[in-house]
């Protein structure tokens, strides 16, 4: 096992930590604060709309990944399997169910409140449907609001699709929100929040695009998963989120000014040796060990698709205060998880080229049927279109049984050597790398 040292923290990290602490504390006191609680998902979330009704959102995937990072997922998964969940079921689901079976204690150790509403706004992943069917049985009588996001099968969002989604928001989602909270929908408040959303989104894009620099001042995957935290979860559309991204943006600017490399848990990366684009979520149970394999050899992830699952902003989309419901519809349909395979390939190709990457790597998730499908095709296409060396590793989201440190290290070591050896030999051959 890798030797893990204490992490180095930046100001924005502390800010985010405080935001999360307050969020979970509010959740634990939801009743006292007279706030209604809505369970919903990250990809295609309606955070601004939820917050405009003063509801508190709970994201089961986030709880699962947090449990994974806190080494709790193993027992939660075991408990879910005990009541009949198969080994092949998504481990986010099992971890979440297991957590509920164990008293629904959140990542901060405080109890999470039961839902007043289940908002199923699913994008791309079909397991979400089944997940909420299970939650519906775990919380009998809790109303369910469903927002169906049409999959981008044809690779574009049509006006009819937008109309279809807005209609659902108006006729299904908003009335349920009103019914649960007893409050009237306030379009002006929603619009105001969208201004903050757009502001945060602009900053996030600038932060992530700073990785186009050589060397990159950030790791757009391992640190990127922290950067997307506020905007992907309970804070999009809030002033705090805008403040967080302003702070983070300045930190990154400062890093650029000082010529510093990406921050890692063991300080700055000294030398950028490899620039990679990454597809697939990280493994959460062994996150630090996994990251260490990369930063120890100077491998930086300059762009990743995982940091787009809760919204693709770098191709121009922003939440729009002038058309709040329409922009929520477009946002949901534009999430990475809702893109078809050719769109995903195009996006990754643009990342490899625009971020001047040396390689493309996939971390395929054992228990994720929705997104592991098609990854080999993506890999082949990227290899053919860009000529970079490609790599493929397998692990899982939160089931530690599927993280084999030795196997993953062996594959990654081979992959890094592939990149290194190519540089040496091509230089000897007089071929420009």
């Amino acid at each position, binding site marked *: 096992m890798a030797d893990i040292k204490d992490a180095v923290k930046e100001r924005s990290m502390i800010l985010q930590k405080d935001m999360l602490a307050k969020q979970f504390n509010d959740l634990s006191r939801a009743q006292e604060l007279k706030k209604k609680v809505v369970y919903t998902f990250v990809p295609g979330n309606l955070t601004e709309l939820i917050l405009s009704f003063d509801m508190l959102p709970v994201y089961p995937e986030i709880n699962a990944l947090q449990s994974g990072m806190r080494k709790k997922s193993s027992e939660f998964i075991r408990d879910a399997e005990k009541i009949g969940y198969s080994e092949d079921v998504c481990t986010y689901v099992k971890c979440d169910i297991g957590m509920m079976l164990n008293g629904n204690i959140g990542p901060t150790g405080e109890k999470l409140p039961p839902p007043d509403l289940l908002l199923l706004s699913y994008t791309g992943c079909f397991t979400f449907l089944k997940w909420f069917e299970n939650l519906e049985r775990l919380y009998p009588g809790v109303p369910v609001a469903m927002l169906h996001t049409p999959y981008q099968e044809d690779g574009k969002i049509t006006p009819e699709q937008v109309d279809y989604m807005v209609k659902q928001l108006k006729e299904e989602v908003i009335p349920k929100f009103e019914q649960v909270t007893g409050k009237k929908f306030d379009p002006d408040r929603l619009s105001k929040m969208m201004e903050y959303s757009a502001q945060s989104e602009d900053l996030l894009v600038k932060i992530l695009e700073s990785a186009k620099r050589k060397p990159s001042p950030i790791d757009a995957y391992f640190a990127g998963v922290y950067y997307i935290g506020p905007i992907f979860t309970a804070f999009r559309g809030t002033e705090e989120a805008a403040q967080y991204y302003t702070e983070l943006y300045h930190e990154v600017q400062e890093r650029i000014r000082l010529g510093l490399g990406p921050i890692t848990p063991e300080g700055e990366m000294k030398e950028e040796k490899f620039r990679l684009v990454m597809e697939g979520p990280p493994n959460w149970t062994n996150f630090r060990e996994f990251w260490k394999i990369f930063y120890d050899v100077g491998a930086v992830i300059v762009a990743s698709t995982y940091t787009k699952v809760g919204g693709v902003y770098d191709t121009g989309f922003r939440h729009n205060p002038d058309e709040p419901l329409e922009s929520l519809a477009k946002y949901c349909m534009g999430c990475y998880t809702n893109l078809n395979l050719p769109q995903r390939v195009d996006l990754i190709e643009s990342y490899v080229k625009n971020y001047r990457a040396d390689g493309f790597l996939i971390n395929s998730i054992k228990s994720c049927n929705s997104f592991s499908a098609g990854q080999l095709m993506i890999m082949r296409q990227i290899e053919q279109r860009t000529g970079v*060396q*490609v790599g493929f590793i397998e692990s899982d989201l939160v089931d530690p049984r599927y993280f*084999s440190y030795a196997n993953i290290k062996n594959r990654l070591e081979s992959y890094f050597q592939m990149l290194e050896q190519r540089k040496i030999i091509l230089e000897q051959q007089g071929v420009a790398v």
Partner: protein
Amino acid sequence: MSKYYLGVDLGSTTSKAVIINEQDEIIGRGITNTRANYAVAADIARDEAIFNARFSVLRKKLEAEIQAKPEYRKYISDLESVFQYEQFKVRLDKLGDELLKTCRTFFHDPQKQEEIIGYLRSIRRAFKPTIKHDYLYNNLGARSQFFRDIVSEKYNEQVNQLDMALFEPLMTVWDKSISPAENERIQFNFPELVHKAMEELKEKYRNLPDTAAEDTSVNFDAEMNLLKGNFDQVSETLREHIEEIALLEFNITNMTGTGYGRALLPFPQDCIRSEILCHAFGAHAIFPDTRTVLDIGGQDTKAIQVDRYGLVTSFQMNDRCAAGCGRYLGYIADEMSISLNELGPMAMQAEKEVNICSTCTVFAGAELRELTNLGEKREDILGGLHKAIIMRAMSLIARSGGVFNEFTFTGGVARNPAVVKYLTQLVRENYGDDIRINIHTDSIFMGALGGAMFARRNINAALPVEKKSAVLT
């Protein structure tokens, strides 16, 4: 002075070493079984490669003479074989000491001790000459030539002839002694051993019967007859050259370690390369048009795509299960109580392939017993097993992107004729009849070859020289 480069491939089952010259030609090969002490396995493979390289240099030096006089070639190959026996003998003596030591510490009753030691002596007396004969007359054939395998086989043969009551004590002593004997580092003195080998060889030819009819254990061939006629003259003519190569200073300029145990090799970090890169680079060096390489090793199977420089562009390897790898075959051989080397030839006799699941080694063992009960022929079951392994490899090849123009098969399993048969069949079925399939006689050495080639090319990559020379003495 000539420069040489070393590649060591420390695999899960065997450790291989290759030495190349500045023209990338293989001049030395060494192979041994991987054991608990990886450093010893690597040392043995390396020493063997260096010894072999000395004989290669000798052959190269005498190239023109050998062309004219085939008896020279025979003499040199005989000498190398006897030289190997001399090394074997040294280790066998170590094993003898170890057996005695174990016996003395394990049995407290002096009478019992003496009894077992007596049996050990008679066992040794019985098998030592047969092993010597096998080496001297090149009778080892396709059997394993690893010390452990040779002596285990002979020891077992002898123990099985004794009273059943002796089985347990003798096998216990054996189990406790073989590993220490095998893991002991031995420095062989080349000039000394080669002189002994020359003497031994003289003895052999002096005592050689005149015709095959007198001794059926000797395979007479034209070269042997030729050499028999003028042995002393050949021996004297070559002596000077042998002296020279025995004293030749072997300058290993750089080296690369690879294989599953590479991280444990006493090599600096910069001299370690993944076996994926090495197998591909080695295979590509021998077959430059290769774009797809399949390597089936002891516990992993790798499908590798390479570019025109032999550099890996992508790879896929088996993950959670080693079914379909070399170990799978080893397990099946054990289940069937036959040697690993007999497995392929037996499968070649199959009239049909019985359908066998290849996803788990242990389950395949259970299936094998069930199929035997149902009356399926061993050959047909083995045919099915071999096909199952290749079906698994085919899926890996497909994942890696398929087969392009030329395909090279590497790794120890490439020596198995049935594996080669089904691989050829399935590659052609899936990717067309015009795919060229390469299997080199040195397929097991491809990883070490690739390593040696990287060592030659990466020489400018700022390597810590002091550390290197420390392990190359």
